[in-house]
């Protein structure tokens, strides 16, 4: 049923309809409303057969989920920013052990300087943790991705992170169709773990693996990641059939077919970019937008195909890397077809809004030859402040 509801609340109610049996979480803005609502649903008895664990930290939250998942429970947690970093030690254990935990990351900048607002630094810092990382372009997709995440996680025996922009989505009140219980039950079968800890049937999960087999284990994990791309596309197809909505999958193209310039974006900027594209098209500029829904595993072949025949791609990075470009941008560079010029900008760090006007200007600058190639352009930087501080630092003895 379509309702006017806050993103966090819709996600919490959707997660509840996925019938997790263990939820362990520690509050951190902007994720807090999600777990507050879940604990409320458990308390009032709307979410039954679920143990809600109040833990002492994010490290405890993920560790509790790992234990519960290994014991055969459908588990869920949520976090953001430094909370995700506090889980970092345990993240590769969840993926390495093949535990199908689902986690919401309400994307937020990481400190220092401390900043509670939205960018993608937190999730992208964990790109090699072995978790599937999905980015929601809207609150509707955030809700839908959670249902798909449980299906995918349990089918592939892999943990899945559903990333949704903090505040921008979590705290927005919008029209959202929260999947009905019967429909979720029909789409998401009861959890049948591949193996689980049971005193009556002892198994070992997480044995030490030495030099004789570690490479093979890692290789097999990488192969499973590759198969996950196909499985994800298939889950999105089935979801479309069951719910009538186009959510999830690998990429989300909009008006890219004959585009001269395509903006490559992740998360909620997609909708703003789609509006920018419509405005540009009305003025005769052939623009398009390509949303990256699945960031890990990286859908390189799909991205290559999606950009084929497109002269200009501009990657909007919402995190900073100290390597040769942005985090998302590096992957796009490697996989873009020859013939597509890839430019990279940084926009929207720490909650600075990425606006329709800003994206329209960006596309125009690319077409007019104003946007530099081969450098990472801090597009919304206050140059005056930055240059003044640089000069001051250089003047220091």
């Amino acid at each position, binding site marked *: 049923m379509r309702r006017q509801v806050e993103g966090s609340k819709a996600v919490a109610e959707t997660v509840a309809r996925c019938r997790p049996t263990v939820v362990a979480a520690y509050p951190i803005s902007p994720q807090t409303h999600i777990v507050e609502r879940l604990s409320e649903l458990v308390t009032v008895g709307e979410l039954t057969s679920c143990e809600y664990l109040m833990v002492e930290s994010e490290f405890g939250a993920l560790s509790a989920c790992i234990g519960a998942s290994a014991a055969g429970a459908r588990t869920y947690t949520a976090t953001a920013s430094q909370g995700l970093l506090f889980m970092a030690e345990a993240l590769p254990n969840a993926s390495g052990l093949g535990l199908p935990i689902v986690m919401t990351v309400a994307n937020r900048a990481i400190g220092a300087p401390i900043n509670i607002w939205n960018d993608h630094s937190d999730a992208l810092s964990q790109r090699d943790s072995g978790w599937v990382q999905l980015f929601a372009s809207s609150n509707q997709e955030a809700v839908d991705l959670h249902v798909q995440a449980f299906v995918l996680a349990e089918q592939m025996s892999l943990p899945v992170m559903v990333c949704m922009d903090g505040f921008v989505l979590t*705290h927005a*009140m919008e029209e959202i169709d929260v999947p009905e219980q019967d429909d979720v039950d029909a789409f998401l079968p009861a959890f049948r773990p591949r193996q689980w800890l049971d005193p009556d049937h002892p198994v070992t999960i997480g044995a030490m693996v030495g030099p004789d087999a570690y490479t093979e284990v890692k290789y097999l994990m990488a192969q499973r990641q590759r198969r996950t791309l196909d499985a994800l596309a298939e889950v999105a197809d089935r979801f479309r059939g069951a719910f009538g909505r186009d959510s999830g999958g690998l990429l989300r193209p909009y008006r890219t077919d004959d585009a001269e310039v395509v903006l490559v974006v992740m998360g909620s900027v997609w909708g703003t970019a789609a509006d920018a594209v419509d405005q540009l098209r009305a003025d005769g500029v052939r623009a398009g937008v390509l949303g990256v829904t699945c960031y890990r595993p990286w859908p390189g072949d799909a991205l290559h195909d999606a950009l084929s025949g497109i002269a200009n791609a501009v990657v909007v990075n919402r995190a900073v890397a100290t390597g040769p470009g942005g985090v998302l941008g590096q992957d796009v560079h490697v996989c873009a077809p020859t013939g597509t010029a890839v430019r990279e900008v940084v926009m929207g760090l720490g909650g600075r809004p990425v606006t*329709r006007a800003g994206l329209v200007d960006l596309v125009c600058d690319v077409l007019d030859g104003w946007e530099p190639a081969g450098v990472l352009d801090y597009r919304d930087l206050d140059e005056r402040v930055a240059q003044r501080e640089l000069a001051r630092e250089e003047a220091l003895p």
Partner: protein
Amino acid sequence: MTLDVRIHGRGGQGVVTAAELLSLAAFDQGLHAQALPSFGSERTGAPVVSYCRIDDKPIRAHDPLDAPQVVVVQDPTLLRAADVLDGLAEDGVVVVNSARTPAELADAGLRLEGHQHAVCLPASELARERLGRPLPNTALIGAVVALTGIVGLPALQEAIRQRFTTATDDVLQANLQLASDAHDLVSEREHHDA
């Protein structure tokens, strides 16, 4: 058809709730709506901004509104901040929580351009009378509803009922009455001026 509303106030005045109420009322009338908060550091008294987009088409954007048709100012001392009236449409309207007149507020920073006009409403005083607390948001949204005509008063009152589910009946009734009082006051005044 679109209506973009930006609400300025201070933490604790119900700035986010005001945007949510308007979005709920619009949704109930079959329109598409989005309430977006722009949180500061969530301190009581700190300046806070929220946005409400209303449209007859589905809403995709999530960027802040840059050209609102309506700006609501819950605390008139915020008028001194340069950005409160930024981007207000040429024929836009400012709703100010004040017992003074727009002319009297000119020195306090209420400087309008072109065909913009201002409506003052003593929302804190009305709330103090009805509610016993100076919480201006339901009265101010009642005024916005009266001025724009895009959403009816009954839809706003239904939104208040939906949003204030944990409030006591006294508080709920007082807020319903505040929305209605403000709506009628502004409707009469605008009718008289026209």
